[in-house]
């Protein structure tokens, strides 16, 4: 493996190719347009396909059609674009189609701004489209992790026949870091003849496959939803991923933070450690399924006075943190979401303040 210096957005595009996905539909939107720009050159080189659609709405259904006939496919977008795709994501989830979405979040709501944010946490983890569905959501904290997660996302999408979302932010997309791509070829996608509309001649079968999302019989629809729920429950058992920092110490506070924000928290934790204040952190790598048990257990530690959710949003993940803490420790939130990333000094100041409040 050779290390190369790459911009996050371009590395994401390259990772999809290395994962074996040669089909990409997209619509340009800041701050992730470089993915489309990169792949418009790169896909023809590797015999792949790139189509710039007329809208994000159309992108979602191009993905549906292509995935529905059994091909690997993905897209990238940013917040307002994902909102437009959300209708289609609901259909893709119901149709049980393996599609990978990358959301390089910008500030919102509305047009918001083009700088990094984590304001799409609710949309990604609680469903932005209609109906009972879940995405498997992964949150990278570096360009390398973006590459690794994109490659893994295709495998998980196939495993669960479910859409998977990589939830990055503008900073992850725009920064340059050294990355390595694995030399090993990706696993071949599973045989999809049983359900994909890939043409009866292709699969030498005389039964016609139908990919649909309409279930007019209430019992049938309920059973369909139970089947989907079983998949989400399985994800909760098998796919929870997180990283712990400084949790071997007798930390006074436990920070929960993900993505770009967690890197700033890491710097703050190191500085506080030098000053003699131990702070632990859990960084969820999967936002759905959420590392509920790990956070709960870490909060139980006797030395831990407070749990702090630090986000580039106005308190979205904190609701999940509160839910899994079950009231055993006080929970606080700190964040910003105008596109400005909170500094280590700010994190240090608020963390000390929260610890002080609980020590009185």
């Amino acid at each position, binding site marked *: 493996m050779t290390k190369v210096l790459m911009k996050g957005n371009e590395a994401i595009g390259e990772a999809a190719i290395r994962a074996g996905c040669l*089909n990409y*539909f997209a619509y340009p939107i800041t701050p992730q347009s470089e993915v489309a720009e990169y792949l418009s050159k790169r896909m023809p080189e590797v015999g792949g*396909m790139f*189509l710039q*659609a*007329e*809208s994000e*709405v*159309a*992108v*979602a*259904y*191009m*993905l*549906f*059609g*292509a*995935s*529905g*006939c059994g*091909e690997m*496919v993905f897209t990238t977008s940013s917040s307002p674009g994902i909102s437009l795709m959300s*209708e*289609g994501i609901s*259909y893709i989830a119901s149709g049980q189609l393996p599609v990978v979405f990358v959301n390089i979040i910008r500030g919102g709501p509305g047009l918001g701004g083009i700088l990094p944010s984590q304001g799409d946490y609710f949309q990604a983890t609680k469903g932005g489209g209609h109906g009972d569905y879940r995405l498997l959501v992964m949150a990278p904290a570096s360009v390398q992790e973006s590459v690794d997660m994109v490659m893994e996302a295709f495998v998980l999408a196939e495993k669960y026949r479910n859409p998977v979302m990589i939830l990055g932010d503008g900073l992850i997309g725009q920064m340059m870091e050294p990355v390595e791509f694995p030399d090993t070829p990706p696993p071949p996608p599973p045989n999809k003849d049983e359900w994909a*509309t*890939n*043409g*009866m*001649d*292709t699969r030498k079968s005389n039964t*016609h*496959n*139908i*990919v*649909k*999302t*309409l279930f007019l019989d209430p019992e049938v629809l309920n059973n369909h939803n139970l089947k989907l729920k079983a998949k989400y429950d399985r994800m909760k058992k098998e796919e929870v991923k997180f990283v712990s920092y400084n949790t071997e110490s007798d930390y006074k506070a436990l920070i929960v933070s993900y993505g770009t924000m967690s890197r700033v928290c890491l710097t703050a934790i190191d500085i506080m450690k030098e000053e003699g204040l131990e702070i632990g952190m859990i960084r969820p790598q999967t936002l759905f399924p959420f590392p509920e048990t790990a956070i709960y257990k870490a909060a139980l530690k006797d030395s831990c006075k407070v749990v702090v959710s630090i986000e580039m949003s106005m308190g979205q993940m904190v609701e999940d943190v509160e839910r899994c803490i079950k009231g055993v420790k006080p929970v606080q939130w700190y964040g910003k979401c105008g596109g400005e990333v909170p500094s280590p000094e700010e994190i240090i100041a608020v963390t000390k303040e929260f610890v002080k409040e609980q020590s009185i």
Partner: protein
Amino acid sequence: MGVKFKRPEALTENHTHYCPGCTHGIIQRLVGETIDELGIRGKTVGIAPVGCAVLSYNYFTCDFQEAAHGRAPAMATGIKRVRPDLIVFTYQGDGDLASIGMGEIVHAANRGEKFTTIFVNNAVYGMTGGQMAPTTMPGQRTTTSPFGRDTSDTGMPLRVAELLSSLATPGYITRQTVISPKHIRKAKKAIKKAFEYQIEKKCFSLVEVVSTCPTNWGMTPVDALKWTEETLLAYYKLGDYKLPE
């Protein structure tokens, strides 16, 4: 004695849910016959719309996907771009294609996507209970134009075949109807031609079929045919609007 008339292999034995006097059944039979005659059933993927034809996957024996409202052309694009060897057709109504899905059909046609669209125009929203469509005639009463369509308020009925034929990209755009055996024969030829152009990878093809909706028009099937001929066909002129070079 030889068999003169039988169900095409491309159609299932299921009874359709369409109302008496509606011509969806005839149009789908013509598509089924075409698939049989061209021998393409094993590589055809149909796309059902929202609206009356949403369940059309129950009536065909080829692979099918079911679209969200208006998005069938985007889905067809997705399939053709990753599997150009498949034969893909969308089957869409006027509310689906001319209203919510106008963007998708215009851009698919303009890109020259090599799929076929069967566009069934009956001047009303059928499945949702007879509301005004972009194709509803001036003065036509519907549940959302109870005093008759007021064109000063809602504009004139959209002529999809004419609109799409204005695109510079090559395509096959034609308008047909199935209100009599003579018209059915012509419509069949047009549908077959549309699929042949796709098989030859020549162009995007769309057959608009002026259809009936006796239930929501509040007419008997016979009166609906008469009204189609006298009123709809006076505005929606039959014929080829665009032919590939």
